[in-house]
């Protein structure tokens, strides 16, 4: 479903991601962890087509993000860390815009908009202008928009920022259900507990390189220490990242 094939991205002379090779199969929830400046956001931006790799290829469902960007986007839902909405559109109007952009037939779009409004409990404010929304409301609406077309791949950049505990619970349950149904989820997060609770596999990035790839159990086994995941993570990202 998602494939990074020897991907490198530089900012001027500075490498942000170096020779990243990674394949995430259908139905897997993958969490990308790493300290600030590790290259997580660059990886996410390449995955949603906002940045082009300096070298290598990124594919979604077999579509090259550079050569077949539109086809790749058709299979992708994206929830950015900072939700972007049109202030002068209501939540419902925004969902209609997204449905139209994905070429959904009217009757189907109507059903799916109602479905997402129900799942994310948007009904109370779906017909208000989004300029009046709180950060949490905006984030829920962006989730609804990202899932409206039932994407094969969902990309999440720090998805829990701004959500209240109830919404966090909704999202967690939703992600579990979606992966069971075959959706692939690629998530970047700082929250170790969330990765531990949700992810099938984790990747830990340090200075643009993937330092670890595997399950949480494998991570514990690799470091072979009787300690918490937080200590393992700090061990990986601090000690080894020192030049």
């Amino acid at each position, binding site marked *: 479903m998602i494939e990074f094939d020897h991907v490198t991205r530089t*900012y001027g002379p500075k490498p942000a991601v170096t020779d990243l090779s990674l394949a995430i199969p259908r139905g897997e929830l993958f969490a990308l962890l790493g300290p600030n400046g590790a290259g997580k956001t660059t990886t996410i931006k390449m995955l949603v087509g906002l940045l082009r790799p300096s070298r290598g290829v990124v594919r979604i469902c077999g579509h090259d993000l550079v050569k077949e960007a539109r086809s790749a986007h058709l299979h992708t839902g994206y929830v950015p860390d900072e939700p*972007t909405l*049109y202030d002068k559109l209501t939540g419902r109007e925004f969902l209609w*815009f997204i449905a139209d952009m*994905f070429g959904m037939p009217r009757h189907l779009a109507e059903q799916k908009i109602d479905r997402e409004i129900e799942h994310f409990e948007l009904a109370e404010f779906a017909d208000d202008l989004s300029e009046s929304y709180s950060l949490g409301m905006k984030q829920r609406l962006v989730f609804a928009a990202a899932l409206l*077309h039932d994407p094969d791949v969902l990309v999440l950049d720090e998805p829990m920022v701004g959500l209240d505990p109830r919404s966090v619970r909704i999202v967690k349950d939703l992600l579990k259900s979606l992966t*069971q149904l075959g959706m692939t989820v690629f998530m970047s997060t700082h929250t170790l507990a969330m990765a531990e609770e949700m992810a099938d596999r984790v990747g830990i990035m340090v200075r643009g390189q993937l330092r670890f790839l595997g399950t949480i159990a494998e991570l514990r086994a690799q470091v072979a220490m009787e300690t918490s995941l937080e200590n393992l993570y700090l061990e990986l990202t601090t000690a080894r990242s020192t030049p």
Partner: protein
Amino acid sequence: MKNVERRNVEGRGMPGMLLLAGMAGRSVRESHSESCRLTPVEVESRVFSRLRATIAWQTLRSMFSGARLRLALVVLLSIVFWVSLYGLFVEGFSFLESIHAEVISLLFNAFFSSLMVMLVFSTGILLYGTMYCSPEARMLLTLPARSEAIFSHKFQEAMWFSSWGFVLLGSPMLVAYGFVRGSPWTYYLLLLPFMVSFVVIPATLGGICCMAAVAWLGRLRLHVLTILSVGVCVGAVWLAWSLFQSGSVTGGSAEWFDQVMARLSVTEQRVLPSWWLSSGLIEAARATDRPEARLASLVEAVKFLAVLVSNGMLLQLLARLLARSSYRTGFSQLTGEMPARRQRRMAWTDRVLSAAGTARGRPLRLLLVKDLRLFRRDISQWSQFVIFFGLLGLYFFNLRSFNYNTAYASMISFLNLAVAGLILSTFTTRFVYPMISLEGRRFWILGLLPVHRDQIVWSKFLFSFFGGLLPCCGLLFLSDTMLGISRSLLWVHEIACVVLCMGLSGIAVGLGARMPDLRESSPAKISAGFGGTLCLVLSALFIMSVVIIAALPTHLAMAAKAFGGGGPPPTGFLGWASGPQGSATSLLLIVVLGFIAAFVPLELGLRSFRRLEP
């Protein structure tokens, strides 16, 4: 809807179950193939059109429900502006028709060609902001939208923003021209298509330049843009200099007028869209009693329109091709650029401000240093400041060429004072008024500092006052020197200028503190609200009052001299008002007015700001 809401309420206690129940109807692979497809071009275009229409409608609705006063003021002022311009142009065209009808073609060419250059730059800059730096562009690029469709969407928005001034300024001019020429109804019918098809050409050129610069010039684009801007400015200075450098010829004389017109003919080039537009409009406006001649003119006009439309369409096609091949690449390149390294060394102004003065005033000075840094680093602020005051300086610098008599020079000097004040008022409204509101999101920082809230307000006032003082007083000095104004009148102007800077700063900062919008992050939106409109209106009234009071004694004295002939000097009120006592009283009045305009709004703002709960 009700059904959905009811089910939500039922599901409140167990979101997980609700979701799992909802998931039963969701099958990723099946529903994806059923429900999603790449949209054809025309559907995509319709979706974006619908988006713009919905946003425009919702914006209008919000204005009707929340900002009626502002809307009424805008409509009223626009009507007044339009009608005044129309009257002015009717007079102007009647005068020109009576002396030399051919001049109109030259004036049209000069006006439309300068407009063309401005539209290329303004649309290019607007598109750069909206296509490459906006969150909306980032969102649209993650959707399965064509690059060229995103370009078209943003282009239409940018074209509207950059050309609405042309509609407001150009339509009364062109309608007045038709009225004076006694044009047939077809002229009025063709006006809008002519204006729109003309605007599309420079706007598209601006878009092409913008995309090409981002895609192919990389970091060099800033240098290229700077060189280009300098080139255009030098060209404008050269043109202005050559137009008004008339040596011994008296400004406003027939000989001077002929010289100016001869030099303006440089804009009359057949390859320029401005010439197609001018020629087409002149043909369409041609009034004749002979039906065959009327038809021939109409056909000629339609041919020019066809040239404009076909060129506009060709450029649009090229722009879309360029967007298809380069937009995503350019966006990626720009996103991947490293931000310029900030200078760590402190600017000398910051060092002087931080170190000078007493320890008690240090917090206030540090706030000033912070605002000064933000101003220096915000290109949109200082570039507009430099452009507007630069153009004003250019105009003042050319005043010497006109050789005015004393009365005329004095009148122009006061008009220049008013213009400097009006330009300053647009800056205080656009940039100073929103300053307190913009502290909203950082209020927790200021709130936790050992700084009295009054000092925050005072720092904004001092920033605005001293920031406006230097350019305005300097420019007025230049204007008066070029006009050969007496030293005593120069002092009157300088005092009036200080009063204007003080009053305008007080109005903007005081109202900004009295009516802050702490949730809004866009200064443009803050200044476009009710408070910003009120600030602009009060500023205009204040400027008019100060200029009229300051000008009255001088002009009464001149009137008395002009109408008195060689007789005795005037007595009574006229004698008092036109004498030294009158001048002293007018100065005292404007100073008092300045203090009232500055400190009443400031006091209101300070009181309100002390009680503010963010």
